[in-house]
C-alpha cells in the first residue's frame, strides 16, 4: 500500500476504510478484532467500540417492552 503524501495515520485509515467499506459486496457486516478485543465497526474511521458496548447500546436503543414503548 502506498501513501502518496500525507500522514501515515490518515493514509492507513483511508486504506482500511476502503478495504472494509468499499468493493464488491459479497456479505454483510464485519467484526474486527484488534489485539484480541472484538471491535464492531460502523465506519472504521468513525467509530470503534467493543462488541459488548455495542450490544448494550443496541439493547438500550432497540429493545421494546410489551406495550411497544422503548424503555426510558
Amino acid at each position, binding site marked *: *500500500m*502506498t*501513501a*502518496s*503524501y*500525507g*500522514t501515515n495515520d*490518515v*493514509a492507513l485509515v*483511508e*486504506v*482500511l*476504510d*476502503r*478495504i*472494509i*467499506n*468499499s*468493493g*464488491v*459486496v*459479497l*456479505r*454483510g*457486516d*464485519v*467484526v*474486527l*478484532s*484488534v489485539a484480541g478485543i472484538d471491535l464492531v465497526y460502523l*465506519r472504521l*474511521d*468513525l*467509530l470503534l467500540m467493543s462488541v459488548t458496548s455495542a450490544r448494550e447500546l443496541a439493547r438500550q436503543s432497540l429493545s421494546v417492552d410489551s406495550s411497544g414503548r422503548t424503555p426510558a
Partner: protein
Amino acid sequence: VIHAYGIVTRSDGEDLSRSVASFRGIDGAPAQVLLRDRIAAVFTQHAQRPSAALEAVMSHARLVEDIWRWCSAVLPVRFDGTMTDVGFLTSALDERSEAAEQRLARVRQCVEFGIRVTPVDPEDGPADVPGDANGRGYLMRKATLLRHEDEQRQRAERAVRSALESLPARPLEWMSLPVSRSEATVARASLLVRDDDAESVLSQLAAVSHHERGVEVTVVGPLPPYSFTEVAL
C-alpha cells in the same frame, strides 16, 4: 469456507491461474482462481471462517494488490467476502457476470486515489460564539458551532470539487464520500484515474493542497479501485 479477494476478466484469470499458487491470502492460504465463462474470481480456502483481525484485513489488501498488479483490471471484493463454498461464489459470479464485465472495462488500467481534507487547527472555531451560562446559552453555542462546522465542510467540498474540475488531467470518475460530525475531517473523495494520468493528477493535487488555506489535503494512493466496483454479488 472460502474468502474472495477480487474479480477479473476470464482471460486475466487464465493467465493468473498459472502463477496464482505463489500468491498468499489470509493466514498464508494459497490463492486459487475460479474461472467462469466471462469472468473469474480469486479466493482462498479455510477450515473455518478467518478471524476478522487487523492482520487479516491487511493480508486481504495485499492479495488484492497482487492481483491488481498482475491483471489489467480488478474489481476488489471488500473484506467481508467469506462464503460457505465455491458453489456460492460460482452462482454469484454467473448472476452478475455482465455487470462485472462492464465495470472491469471501466476500471481497466486505472487507479484509485483517496482525498481527505482536514482543518489545520480542528479547534479553530468561529470568533463570535455565545457563552453557555445557561441552557439557552449552551444551545445557542452548540448551534453556532454546528453551523460553523457545516460551513467549513461545504467550503471544503466546494474547494475539492473546483480543484478536481480545474485539473488539466481529469479523473475519469470521482465521488464525494460522507463525512460524519464526529470526524475532524471536512471532506473526503475518491478518484478514478488512468494509470497514465496518475502522476500528473497527483502533482496537481499536491499543488492545490498548498493553495487552500486553513486545511490540509491528504492524498492516498494509488490503490485498487475499491470505490468504483458498483457490483453487488
